[in-house]
């Protein structure tokens, strides 16, 4: 799986063409932070705009965890409702709105996966999906791709540079919510090796993103 993943990513890697940041907001459009403030003031239009901007990314994240289209749609709706209900807890000092939403969506998705005791089914689906579509970290060209284009390419460039074993460990931890011990058991790898792979892989991504941010 990881080798196929790497190949697919490398095959699609393109060079960034401009210094855009994600997301590119059209002139006159509110920023993410302005939308969050709108939601904090209980303005439904702000939630509507934030939904339009990010539903595709959050749905992709949810799907990556639970591998079920209709459950993912239901969860997406619940997550945006939680964004509405919990917006007062968002603080710009602690990070950007997208980071906050992704953290919330990932937690809800992994909770949902555990509650439904769907590990076994998800395992089968993941296996099947991976065989058919070995590009979990690769994206197609869509309207959203254009909007998020440069940042997405840069992120992909960083992730594609990871050794497959490190990529796999991070994938299992982030998208499957597995602990180090679970990853070790799942991949028949010594616990210490899993820890090292996670530490090295995450550091490379973290450092790579920082470098690329400076390039932009």
């Amino acid at each position, binding site marked *: 799986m990881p080798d196929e993943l790497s190949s697919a990513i490398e095959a699609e890697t393109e060079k960034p063409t401009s210094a855009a940041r994600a997301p590119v907001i059209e002139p006159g459009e509110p920023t993410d932070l302005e939308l969050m403030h709108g939601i904090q003031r209980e303005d439904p239009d702000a939630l509507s705009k934030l939904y339009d901007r990010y*539903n595709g*990314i959050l*749905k992709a994240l949810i799907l990556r965890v639970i591998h079920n289209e209709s459950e993912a749609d239901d969860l997406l709706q619940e997550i945006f409702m939680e964004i509405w209900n919990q917006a007062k807890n968002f603080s710009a000092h602690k990070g950007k709105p997208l980071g906050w939403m*992704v953290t919330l969506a990932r937690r809800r998705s992994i909770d949902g996966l555990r509650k439904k005791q769907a590990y076994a089914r998800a395992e089968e689906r993941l296996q099947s999906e991976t065989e058919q579509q070995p590009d*979990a*970290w690769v994206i197609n060209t869509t309207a959203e791709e254009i909007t998020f284009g440069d940042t997405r390419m840069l992120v992909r460039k960083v992730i594609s540079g990871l050794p497959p074993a490190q990529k796999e460990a991070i994938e299992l931890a982030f998208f499957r919510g597995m602990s180090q011990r679970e990853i070790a058991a799942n991949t028949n790898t010594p616990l210490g090796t899993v820890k090292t792979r996670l530490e090295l892989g995450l550091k490379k991504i973290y450092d790579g993103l920082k470098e690329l941010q400076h390039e932009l």
Partner: protein
Amino acid sequence: MTGSKNYSMSFDEFQNRSRLYVIGALESDELDEFEEARKEFGQKGEDFISECYGLHEAFALSLRPAKASSSIKDRLMTMVRQKQQRG
């Protein structure tokens, strides 16, 4: 390495643990040590943890966007408006 109070964590190690922490991959003994160190490093530690949450955003941005059912937004906005009406 089992939560000893005498174990003093370097900031480098704290940074490693922070990256694991934000993706939920710390084991329970590591988590205890991390929380101890977090108190020691104070604001500097909190600032670094906040930075690490940028990894979440990066992972999400790296995925192929998925199309949501068109009825989801309608249901969501109906729920929001009903909630507002209930006060």
